[in-house]
């Protein structure tokens, strides 16, 4: 028997495999195909205060070993989530993380306030790095002042562990990480998808109405791994690593370089039970290598 439990400060997971936000809906949709009791945590789709319709179609396109998405954060709003989905989700023996965002700093805070009341929710993840929400302006994480202010406001209204989700648009990594540490963030998660482009050659126009879309999936894994490596190098906050994981070995790469847990995004789309095979694969690897505790493996390659 191996022990897969991992500790991320105030957040304890029974195993390191998390379902990433936006790729497991509100839990309900994936539950028929994946035993949610078997994953370390599930991250609910990014919630705003009011329901939000998202971007016009087409919203997704497969590219070489990856997908481009321009979902644009469609969601039912925090209230409906609480009414319709939370009690269903609560029946599972897994951690519940909720990804949140807002059009304004204020909206971030209001979503956090709603969720802070609910004991069953284990942590909030602030999505400050979605490449599909900018409207002529930059994502929140690329502007230090805005980022600092959002985080401070959310921190003020919730005691729950606070995860901040970063992406490739962060400009000054060291400064950003310093700010996040100072503002009392508990955990970092990265990476969000990479801003990218796709042209419909037949129609001679951009494939997505909003031109840019976010690249994720196996294609970005070596880049995400480097990003996580650099962040782990710099900060002492626990890091959830993600970006292109579709096998236990992919996940182990992130853990070996120091991520305390990993999240699966596109993997859930291509096979809703893939997360389970990642959990089992990690277990088998530990057994095969006679390592009793996963924690002993984390950060062993630096």
């Amino acid at each position, binding site marked *: 028997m191996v022990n897969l439990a991992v500790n991320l400060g105030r957040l304890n997971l029974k195993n390191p495999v998390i379902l990433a936000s*936006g*790729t*497991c*809906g509100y839990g309900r*949709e*994936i539950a*028929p*195909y994946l035993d949610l009791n078997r994953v370390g945590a599930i991250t609910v*789709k990014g919630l705003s205060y009011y*329901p939000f*319709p*998202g971007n*016009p*179609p*087409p*919203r*997704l*396109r*497969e590219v*070489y*070993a*990856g*997908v481009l*998405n321009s*979902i644009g954060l*469609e969601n039912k709003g925090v209230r409906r989530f609480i009414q319709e989905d939370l009690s269903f989700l609560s029946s599972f023996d897994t951690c519940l993380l909720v990804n949140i965002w807002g059009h304004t700093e204020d909206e971030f805070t209001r979503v956090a306030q709603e969720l802070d009341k609910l004991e069953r929710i284990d942590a909030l993840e602030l999505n400050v790095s979605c490449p599909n929400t900018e409207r002529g302006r930059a994502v929140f994480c690329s502007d230090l002042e805005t980022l600092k202010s959002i985080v401070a406001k959310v921190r003020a209204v919730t005691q729950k562990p606070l995860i901040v989700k970063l992406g490739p648009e962060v400009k000054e990594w060291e400064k950003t990480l310093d700010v996040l540490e100072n503002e009392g963030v508990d955990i970092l998660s990265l990476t969000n998808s990479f801003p990218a482009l796709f042209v419909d050659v037949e129609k001679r126009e951009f494939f997505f109405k909003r031109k840019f879309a976010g690249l994720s*999936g*196996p294609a970005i894994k070596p880049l995400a791994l480097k990003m996580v490596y650099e962040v782990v190098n710099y900060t002492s906050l626990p890091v959830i690593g993600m970006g292109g994981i*579709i096998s236990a070995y992919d996940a182990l790469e992130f853990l070996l370089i120091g991520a305390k847990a990993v999240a699966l995004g*596109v993997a*859930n*789309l*291509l*096979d*809703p*039970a893939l997360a389970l095979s990642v959990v089992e694969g990690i277990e088998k690897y530990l057994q095969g290598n006679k390592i009793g505790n996963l924690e002993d493996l984390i950060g062993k390659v630096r």
Partner: protein
Amino acid sequence: MREAIIEEKKSWGERFIQLKLKEEEIAHCAQPGQFVMVRAQKGFDPLLGRPLAVMKVEGDSFYLFWEVVGRGTKILASLNLGSKLEVLGPLGKGFSLSPSQALIVAGGRGITPLYFLASHFKKNEVPFTFFLGVKNKEELFMVDFLQDFSGAYFWSCEEPIEGGFCGTVISLFQSWLKDNYLPPGSRIYSCGPEGMLKSLYREEKIRDIPLEVSLETFMGCGFGVCMSCAVEKGNDEGYFHVCKDGPVFLARELKW
């Protein structure tokens, strides 16, 4: 995902493929209009599953029929007898199954879910008439599928063909409508190119016969988590999700 083995493979030229796949659950549970997500088992190219409608079920097996339009459908078409595929399904909401009389209008590869629907009607003695439209001679082989519904089908081809109606399936259907009475409770069922569905929707409005359409969109997951299969709602703000709310919709609920 579950494994399905290729038991039979037929192809018509380079563009159309039919597979018989052994997988019990789908074979036993699929309803007309439902679909499955299909992935090659080895490797990750293509990465995502592709949505394909169920055409027919037979014992522990089911049939798919598709057109090669891009990279994914091409790679899937290259798999040989005995190879395994990963399948997830049956998925989505199918057609309504108890009209007093059914008019089925298929355009090209849109025949797939409608063939399944017509088979169901035949078994359950729901009267129906099947209209199939193909673009050219190369696609005429699809008419053979309809022989199972002898007497109950008409076809058209946009290229002049001896013995066939020359034109779109819409004109074929319209000319049929002129001469025939539709009892209350009749329904039109359709699947095919967007332009064809649009014309039918105009017809629905004129004659007030409900129209059910099966839609195609890009799909990321097929089971409702990614929100990539959005289509605009008719009245409301916001979007339906084809994989959960559809793929079959009442035309009047959509934005045209």
